[in-house]
């Protein structure tokens, strides 16, 4: 989710926000069903305005327990067990460099690198299977500042990927290369090993869009903020399996620095 701060601020600012999201994931590599997770979320952002160009940086985290329906129980050697929840984790890091578009609207357009990593550990009975989806690419971004009375500001933003390196769990999830990558517990190197196994994709196989709106009560030092955001993504694997991610969230926080215009 893009951080909504920008060129209208006269000085750099930092944003902190906490909130909640509804995450959903359907990955046909594991199930035809949609998994849903209510997830706490956190956002850290920074904004550096400029005369011609402004820069925004944001880091978003969300994680929660997911199910595709109500829990049920089964027995193992006569002992009753409940189906454990699956887990969803989503991390995104993105930068946008924006430029004001001449015209009657306070509109900015820009580009920037984006890194998104999401994992789903799907639980089944006594076991579980780890899946991942990571993208590193170039996003297009748009930001519109809607005028409000007094010190209030409303920013609306849209974003979408142009092209990205896309790494997704292999067809059979636990193939030899995957096993070798995470051998004996894996580690930090395993993350890069998994992300390194992918291909370049654009809108032909991966469609995604992000939208958000943020209200700010601009104060001199600390400005309260509140925002809503929505993200939709669909990716088609070479073998025909679809992965669908959706997220909708609300958050409240504070902006430090900057100044009202």
């Amino acid at each position: 989710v893009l951080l909504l701060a920008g060129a209208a601020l006269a000085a750099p600012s930092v944003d902190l926000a906490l909130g909640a999201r509804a995450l959903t994931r359907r990955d046909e590599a594991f199930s035809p069903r949609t998994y849903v997770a209510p997830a706490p979320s956190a956002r850290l952002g920074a904004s550096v305005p400029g005369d011609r160009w402004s820069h925004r940086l944001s880091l978003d985290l969300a994680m929660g327990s997911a199910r595709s329906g109500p829990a049920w129980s089964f027995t193992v050697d006569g002992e009753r067990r409940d189906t454990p929840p699956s887990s969803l984790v989503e991390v995104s890091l993105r930068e946008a460099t924006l430029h004001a578009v001449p015209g009657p609207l306070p509109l900015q357009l820009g580009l920037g690198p984006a890194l998104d990593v999401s994992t789903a550990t799907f639980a089944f009975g006594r076991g579980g299977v780890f899946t991942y989806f990571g993208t590193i690419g170039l996003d297009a971004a748009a930001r519109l500042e809607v005028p409000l009375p007094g010190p209030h500001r409303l920013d609306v933003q849209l974003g979408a990927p142009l092209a990205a390196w896309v790494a997704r769990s292999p067809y059979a999830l636990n193939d030899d290369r995957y096993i070798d990558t995470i051998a004996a517990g894996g580690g930090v190197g395993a993350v890069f090993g998994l992300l390194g196994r992918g291909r370049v994709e654009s809108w032909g196989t991966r469609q995604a869009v992000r939208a958000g709106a943020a209200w700010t009560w601009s104060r001199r030092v600390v400005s309260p903020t509140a925002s809503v955001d929505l993200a939709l993504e669909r990716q088609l694997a070479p073998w025909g399996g679809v992965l669908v991610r959706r997220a909708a969230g609300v958050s409240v926080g504070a902006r430090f620095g900057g100044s009202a215009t």
Partner: protein
Amino acid sequence: MRPVLSALALAFAGCAPEPTALEVFDAAWGAFDARYGPFDQRDIDWDAARATWRPTLAPAAGDDTLWDTLTGMLAELDDGHVQLYAPGRAHWYANAVYRERIGDERFDEDRLRAAYLDGGGEDLHDDTVLAGRIRGAEYVWLRVIGGGALELEAARQRAERRGAGLIVDLRHDGGGDFTWARAALSAWTDRDVPVFRSRTRSGPVRGTFDAWTDWAIPGEGAPVQVPVAVLTDRFTISAGERATLMLRELPGVTLIGEPTNGSIATMIGQELPNRWYVTLPVQEVEGPRGEVWEGLGVPPDLEVLDDLATPEVDEVLEAALALVGG
């Protein structure tokens, strides 16, 4: 707050209609058709299985009939990695040995602790490992293959310091992550030792696999200087069998007991449209010389079966002690 979020999340996800029994059957058959690895190695005619079982199921059949049909079809695989979970039912194995616990009583942990291990042994690594001494020999039982496999090297060092033999018990080993065994056994050789090769389903068309991957124990240590006995039974499964395949390639190692289960390939889980779960292996695995043990089990060098007529004696362990000098 959390219930509200959950309700919102569910509303966001939308609702799907409940599938019919026939739709679930087709999804289950299709999941195996698309991802099951060892059809050929187990000589399975999956189309024939569908032709046999699908007509027995009415589209609107209830869960009991669906369960009977699915378990009937999956039992044809007799595969320890094939399991079925459904609400209110006992976890089900397609493999007859595991499902009916055939020969389960031949391995007796209580007897092992009471009659053999000095002081009953020591439980390690969250009780996944039992280690100790038996008549002077070092003994390690791996219940599963995980981080506890690293105890193998510790036991080897103790054995070598005392000039004693070493017994690695893999009976009833329930599997896990074989790369832990590979990491542990890298200390047992100074040269790379090829141990098996595997290939994984890479597409939904039956018979589609990626290239073979040759697995070897990296030679990062020194050969073991004491005799090693490895014990296996029909409940040694999955990563336990891969560990067996590794150990059998090392010099000075003797396999004793029964053949392993024969369910070697790595497995995954799949959720069916009605939220039942199935598990299935997605690979073919061969020995380093092209041997196929899937469905057969890794054979021991010395076949010994525990005699139920002498419940106080563990004949397999006795054979190992005789070999390593206990």
